[in-house]
């Protein structure tokens, strides 16, 4: 029974270019208060372009209807649960949007004098301190633009420290359950990647790790809890194995929503880690970004952090650009400041005890879902889970229905799909992360939907295979898109 949704009309809408016609306008500039300039004279005739061919011309009314109509074709957190494992799709508080738009913050120029940027600098210092406390690390850089860039920053820091010791080493170890960004990052940082198999229980294999860690290994990149939602119970021993051979422990903080206030990476041997502010700290995903990927480090890595660093000079904040051992910049200016403002607003709203309560609710939701669904779906790794739970489609595959089909059917029930086919160590994975945002009612409806789909697989597999049935767009032909790429509009 589909409880949560029934279908409603949605508006059709052409592309901007198709509804464009010459002379329509949505803009008005003020009268110029200085003399106009002849473009050919000022720029050189050869530098002046003809009209921008194909650029839209629409009215203001059409513009707002265009984007509003398109918006209704999206699912969103504001509509309901987004059980995407590893993505931590939690509520995006609206107060965060408001404060990021306060004029003195939103219009601050990165080159305005330091004396007139003390408020912005204070925001960054306060966020750095809060993240250091949450992670149990010694220093934090806010510069990286997103998680993957945080990873790159972290690995470059490790390389710099090892280089100072005379040998940057060759290899980075990565468990087979890792996110795809981990190996891609290691490659960009100039390392070769070696995959380490997990144990039958889905956690780090200490014996395999001990064999793999040689004087040639720079670091292990580990996600904890791992992508099965399972806490790496041997993490402290893994750190010891690495440290004994002069290698470092890098932690991907994508799953930090399971740990805030409960356990701190700095206390279990992690040397460097990144955080995704657009996951754990509630900044909006915005259909794919922006994010922010602060990196937290132990003291030994602090001298290598990207420039500039904030320092206190005569009672004021100032930038220190002169840090000889720094890895340099990973992006212009100081980071995605607007995202940092939102994350700090989230931390202020929750406060220390509140952040911990959020973690408890996030884990409770995931454990509850597991309990309610484990009779209906195969659970390949029975270890206790934290903020997410990973099932496999083994039972449904016998009827020819794969995880991707189940996910598409979930759409008809009014939910966004869970993460499909990841982690790679689970064949046909259904990776479910509810976050603390979901009420008991929403979760009960989700559970009911999943059970109902499991029954449909038995009674009407073909119907499940054709899902979704209720969306304005049915299954799209991704093969066609890749075979004959059409990547821009062109007039017919």
């Amino acid at each position: 029974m589909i409880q949560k949704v029934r279908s409603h009309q949605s508006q059709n809408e052409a592309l901007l270019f198709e509804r464009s016609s010459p002379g329509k306008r949505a803009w008005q500039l003020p009268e110029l208060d200085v003399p106009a300039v002849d473009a050919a004279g000022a720029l050189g005739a050869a530098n002046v372009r003809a009209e921008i061919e194909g650029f839209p011309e629409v009215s203001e009314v059409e513009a707002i209807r265009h984007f509003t109509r398109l918006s209704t074709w999206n699912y969103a957190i504001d509509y309901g649960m987004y059980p995407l494992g590893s993505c931590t799709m939690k509520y995006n508080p609206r107060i965060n949007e408001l404060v990021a738009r306060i004029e003195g913050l939103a219009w601050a120029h990165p080159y305005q004098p330091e004396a007139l940027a003390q408020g912005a600098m204070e925001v960054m210092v306060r966020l750095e301190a809060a993240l250091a406390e949450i992670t149990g690390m010694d220093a934090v850089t806010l510069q990286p633009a997103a998680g993957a860039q945080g990873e790159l920053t972290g690995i470059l820091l490790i390389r710099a420290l090892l280089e100072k010791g005379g040998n940057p080493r060759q290899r980075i170890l990565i468990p087979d359950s890792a996110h795809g960004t981990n190996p891609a990052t290691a490659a960009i940082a100039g390392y070769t990647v070696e995959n380490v198999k997990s144990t039958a229980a889905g956690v780090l294999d200490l014996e395999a790790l001990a064999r793999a860690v040689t004087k040639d290994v720079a670091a292990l990149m580990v996600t904890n809890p791992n992508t099965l939602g399972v806490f790496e119970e041997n993490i402290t021993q893994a750190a010891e194995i690495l440290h004994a051979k002069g290698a470092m422990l890098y932690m991907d903080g994508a799953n930090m929503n399971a740990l805030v206030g409960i356990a701190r990476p700095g206390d279990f041997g992690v040397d460097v880690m990144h955080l995704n502010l657009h996951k754990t700290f509630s900044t909006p995903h915005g259909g794919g970004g922006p994010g922010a990927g602060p990196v937290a480090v132990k003291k030994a890595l602090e001298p290598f952090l990207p420039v500039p660093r904030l320092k206190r000079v005569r009672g004021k904040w100032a930038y220190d650009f002169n840090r000889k051992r720094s890895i340099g910049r990973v992006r212009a200016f100081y980071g995605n400041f607007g995202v940092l403002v939102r994350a700090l607003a989230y931390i202020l709203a929750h406060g220390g005890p509140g952040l911990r309560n959020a973690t408890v609710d996030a884990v409770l939701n995931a454990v509850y879902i597991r309990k309610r669904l484990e009779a209906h779906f195969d659970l390949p790794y029975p270890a206790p889970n934290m903020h997410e739970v990973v099932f496999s489609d083994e039972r449904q595959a016998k009827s020819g229905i794969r995880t991707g089909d189940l996910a598409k059917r979930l759409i008809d029930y009014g939910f966004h799909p869970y993460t499909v086919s990841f982690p790679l160590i689970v064949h046909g994975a259904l990776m479910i992360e509810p976050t603390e945002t979901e009420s008991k009612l929403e979760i009960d409806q989700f559970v009911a939907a999943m059970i109902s789909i499991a029954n449909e697989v038995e009674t009407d597999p073909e119907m499940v295979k054709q899902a979704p049935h209720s969306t304005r767009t049915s299954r799209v032909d991704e093969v066609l898109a890749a075979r004959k790429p059409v990547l821009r509009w062109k007039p017919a």
Partner: protein
Amino acid sequence: MRYLPKSDSERRAMLDACGVASPEDLFAHLPEAVRLHRPLDLPPGISEYEIVDYFRRRAAENADGYASFLGAGVYRHYRPVLVDTVVSRGEFLTSYTPYQAEISQGTLTTIFEFQTMICQLTGMDVANASMYDGSTAVPEAAMMAARITGRHRALAARTVHPEYREVLRTYAKNQGMPVEEFGYARESGAVDLEDLERKIDDQTAAVIVQSPNFFGIIEDVKAAAEIAHRRGALLVMVFTEAVSLGILEPPAADIVAGELQSFAISPSYGGPYAGIIATRDPFVRQMPGRLVGQTVDTHGNRAFCLTLSTREQHIRREKATSNICTNQALIALMATVFMTVYGKEGLRELALQNLAKAHYLAENLKPAFSGKFFNEFVVRAGAPETVNKALLKRKIIGGLPLGRFYPELADAMLVCATEMSRRADMDELSQVLQSRAAAEVLA
């Protein structure tokens, strides 16, 4: 807590269903040694009103209410109201990356429109769905050129934004990619093409030129491209001031790496912004970042989806074209709405207003370079820091002192005027800058 939607009795019911006695027991499987046995040392949560108050106070410690002539990669342009109206819709703001095409057609369609408009603007065949910003688009473009040419050297003009070049060096260092620089002509402020000729060789993958360059000067990108092509290298064209493309001829480049901050993206103290990479058709499979393509659904209706993802990290892992995952979708949407609002005529008019304002300012301040410029230029200012202090007393933030990036220009500053610059403020800036007695004004 207002963000947590459960009552205590609901929590109790869920714990019971799990067979767990207390919330603490949810974590009983964690080794004792890793547990945090004290509360986080952070103050208790505060109300909405207190949060607003905190940030208003911080904002007041910034330069609120000043006129500003700073540009240098971040520009003050008016943000049409429609922009925030659209991006504040929860359907755009709170949606995930559009992997599930059937329920993401809103985002996918706007990205397809974005890609199209960036192509129209830059004269390229294909543009990606966005990069973090302009500064990180540059090393991504250089690495892309290296993959295409099978070469490894990057040659960047000294007139490319200095912070972009710093980012390029950070990325290139461990890629086996030496980065060298070529100079600019002291008279014109444009790249020294003879120096480029001298430094380019048969291992050069990318020649990187910015136009308008960091000094605001319009570069002869075509001439640089001819030199690059003669030696088998690709020309990477960088832009930081996207409004200039409303009036300037699109670049004769192989790869365009740009920053869209000018398109209704708040300066926001340096980010988030949105970068782009655009290129010619033959190079598309070496391009980093997400791409949206057109296709059909099972009913034959036009639909869009993410495509050519075999370039990307979640498929190719260590063999991917880049490690980028999250991009700047919502910021790219701001730029899309901006381009829609201004459109074909408006963007040209906007560019012309910028041109007029900057040239009015330049009439009274002699630019240090003879090259043609768009909306910013370099002036000699004696002691720029002293001049700026005098200006601050009049609630004006002057230009960017250049000594930090160009020791040879320690007596110069970079000033920018946009459509938002008021004539009265420009006159006041000119007056102070022209006054040899800047120090006296200060006193």
